[in-house]
């Protein structure tokens, strides 16, 4: 296990690279869901204000 974490001496480069990529992936999921949720909320508010305003 420690040999795996050691990455043949490249641990200081390999693990940060994986961490950055996984962080970007998780953030993308969070951002996309947040956008959809906010758009839904805004659409519902427009409905409440009334009808087919432009």
């Amino acid at each position, binding site marked *: 296990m420690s040999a*795996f974490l050691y*990455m*043949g*001496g*490249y641990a200081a*480069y*390999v693990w*940060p*690279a*994986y961490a*950055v*990529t996984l962080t*970007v*992936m998780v*953030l*993308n*999921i969070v*951002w*996309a*869901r947040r*956008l*959809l949720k*906010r*758009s*839904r909320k*805004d*659409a*519902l508010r*427009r*409905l409440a204000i009334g*009808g*087919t*305003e*432009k």
Partner: protein
Amino acid sequence: MAWTWFHRLASPPHIYRVAGRLTPWLAWPAALLIVAGLIGGLVLAPPDYQQGDGFRILYVHAPSAWLSLMAYTTMAVAAGIGLIWRMKVAHAVAASCAPIGASFTFAALVTGSLWGKPMWGTYWQWDPRLTSELILLFLYLGYMGLRSAFDDVQRADRVSAVLAVVGVVNVPIIHYSVIWWNSLHQAPSVMRLGKPTMPPSMLVPLLMMLVGFTLFFGALLLVRLRGEVLSRERTASWIREALRT
């Protein structure tokens, strides 16, 4: 009629519904492929004979870089369709691509830099491949900045679409930069004519990651697209219908 599919594609309620239904069919295979690819790349693949275990950065670097180019190409094509046929949904696709593409361009640059340090002896070099990928990041940021400068979504769509279409010239420049110029960056080892230059134990996890990231991009795009479509819509009846489910 041959054109009905095109009109249905352009219809926001239809897109909203189909995108919602399609998302899990992309997201779950993406998750499975990425987990399998990570295990294959980090554990099962043998160390490289020159780069040792340092080469394993490949399994996050190459898919991120691939996604950054795929997202830009999708964005430019969608923006072009939006400009030519004045299709709201196409503009919504383009707008959805930008934040995804920008963040993975960032990931490609950072992981590349972390790979460059032990192999080339430097985090950064004004090399054709690295510089053109950095320009890609600026194109994404410029596109997003330009969009946010307009309150009117339709004007933002049209103006930013022009930038997206013009900027697409950078995509082939990035891809061929390692062939056209003397670059520190290695030449393509998978997306090339002829056989890949890797044994299957290294190649299979990479292909899983590339396909996984492609599907992941598709899933993110669909979720964002629903939000974008909804925010462009002012007709009460279909919003009511769409939000009921």
